């Protein structure tokens, strides 16, 4: 028996939710960033699964692009985190609350 698509989608949903929780709970900027990558990854998984189910390669092409963009994003994002770390002296996300109303 072939694994049904819904199983993949459910797995993707779980991974996505874990990523969301990570963003909401953790305060270390690196961990937060990695949780975001986890979310992207989960979406990629669902794309590939659906590309199979719908008999179309567009999903995989999209995953390709997502990966590329994710790479660029990680590079720039980590550079930003480093820069903020240098000026703030801390990698705690909560320490950057200057926009407090």
């Amino acid at each position, binding site marked *: 028996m072939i694994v049904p698509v819904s199983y993949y989608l459910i797995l993707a949903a779980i991974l996505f939710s874990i990523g969301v929780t990570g963003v909401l709970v953790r305060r270390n900027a690196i961990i937060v960033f990695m949780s975001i990558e986890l979310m992207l990854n989960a979406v990629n998984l669902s794309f590939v699964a659906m590309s199979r189910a719908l008999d179309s390669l567009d999903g995989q092409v999209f995953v390709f692009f997502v990966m590329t963009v994710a790479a660029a994003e990680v590079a720039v994002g980590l550079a930003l985190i480093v820069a903020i770390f240098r000026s703030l002296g801390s990698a705690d*996300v*909560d320490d950057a*609350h200057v926009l*407090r*109303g």
Partner: protein
Amino acid sequence: MTTEALLWTTLLLPLAGVVLNIAVGRSLSRRAVGWLASGAVGAAFLVGLVAVGRLLALPAEERVYLTPPLYTWAVAGGFEVPVQLLFDQLSALMVLVVTGVGFLIHVYSIGYMAGEPADYDFRRYFVYLNLFIFSMLLLVLGANFVLLYVGWELVGLCSYLLISFWYTDPQNAAAGRKAFVVNRVGDFAFALGIFLIWSVFGSVVYQDVFEAAHSVAPAVLTAITLLLFVGCTGKSAQLPLYVWLPDAMAGPTPVSALIHAATMVTAGVYLIARASPLFDAATTTSAVVAWVGVLTALFAATIALVQVDIKRMLAYSTISQLGYMFLGVGVGAYTAAIFHLLTHAFFKALLFLGAGSVMHAMEHGAHHTGEHVNPQDMRLMGGLWSRARWTGMTFLVGAAALAGLPLTSGFFSKDEILAGAFLSGRTLLYGVGALTALLTAFYSFRQFFLVFAGEPRSEAARHAEESPPVMLVPLGVLAVLALGAGLVLGWPPEQGLIHGWLEPAFEVAPKAEGAANPLTLLLVSSVIALAGAGLAYLAYVQRTIDVVALSARFQPLYRLLWNKYYVDELYGLLFVRPFFALARFLADVVDKLVIDGAVNGVATVTAGVHALARRLQTGYVRAYALSMVLGALLVLAYLTYLAQ
């Protein structure tokens, strides 16, 4: 020039005076300002005369001219107010009285107000006076009830402005305010009457209303006319809304002469005369009008008996004489009432202007001696006959006309009213009216003797000086009119010139013929007048009747009269005090707490809400992420389940 143009010119000339004096008056001399204003009114009089000439050319039954509407002022559904003028015998007479007597008073004022310190105030006086003439002309020329009401209100405004002319004294301001507020009460009823007219007749134009007068239920007609009459009691100072007129003497004397004797206060009589088809059909209201009139006449005459202020006595006298006019229209003797309006304008204006001249004389005398006197206090006068002869002579004519001495104008007009009452079978009304005539004769001559006869009772009176010609000439003109107008216009009774002129204007049911001979009534009136004058002579010249002892004997009655029956105090208790308490309550409680509270409350609530909302801006990225996830959850729920 078309008649239409003539009429509009008459109306607008005084208004032009107002505008000109406001615009360029600052650079004119005082004489120029005064003569400009007087000239405007005088020119209006002349144009009015030409218009009357046009009317005379028409046969007596058709002497009505209605101008085509200049424009329609207010249009709302079925309600329309065309701006047009009606010129018939009644309005013609009123126009001539207003502009003629008005002209004389304007000229007199140039002298009277000469002592005014500021040029600005001098100019202001003439602007207000011209505005008044314009307003009064609008009142009598308007061809529908709304235009009349506009003029009515405007004259009320001018009255307020002129009563409180010397507004820096709080008493004068209070007097002006009292006049305005009391009038407002009457005007409120008047307005209700107009609303009722419109809702019943569908129009406010005179012709439409009068033509349909007989097809309306009597109860409705009574309601309408009663409401209109309440307005009259306010404007024409009858019971119960007369209380403003004595206080209105705070204004300059020419104002008292013009507005509070000759013209404005007669607007109520004019209204009833104009609406004669309505009042004639509403017999209940007519009875009310007649009784209120005659009772007011008696009431005011009793108060006038004990007055010592020269102007106040004349004010009460005016209230009393207005009562006669209402008695006249109440019994259906419209022509007689208007005749009395005319003669009263002459002799009352004469008396007021004369009083002003007397006051001027007293002030000059006081100037000499350095005394501080009240120039209006008759107890300080006396013996002025030798020092101000012309004033005295003209004043005597006025007093005689007021008393109704035979052959004066007042004699003919007053007698006609009384005859009208008697001949329509209302002998009780006649009786009260005759009694009042006796009192009137008494107090008129009392005043004359107190001021001019005997020995001067103060230094100021001893050094009094006659007034300048610019004040004396109008006195002379008015004296001639007060003396001769009755004979020329009113003889023979019911068939004089004035009857021929006015009677076609009133389409009223012919009066029942009484049993008495009119000449007999004339004789009775003569006796009454002479008796009253004689009593005054005995009391104040010969001192045969000791008035001081009399007043001591009847102390309570005297005190009642002296305090004007305590009416002002009664009104104060019943209306003024509760009203002020209510106003205070509204200001302190409702305004401060409720209204300000609501407004401030909105601000406070907004601030509060904002304080709460501000707590969303934590600055923490993770909190924002939390709300984003919440939003995503909501969208998810919507897409999955709710968007079928």
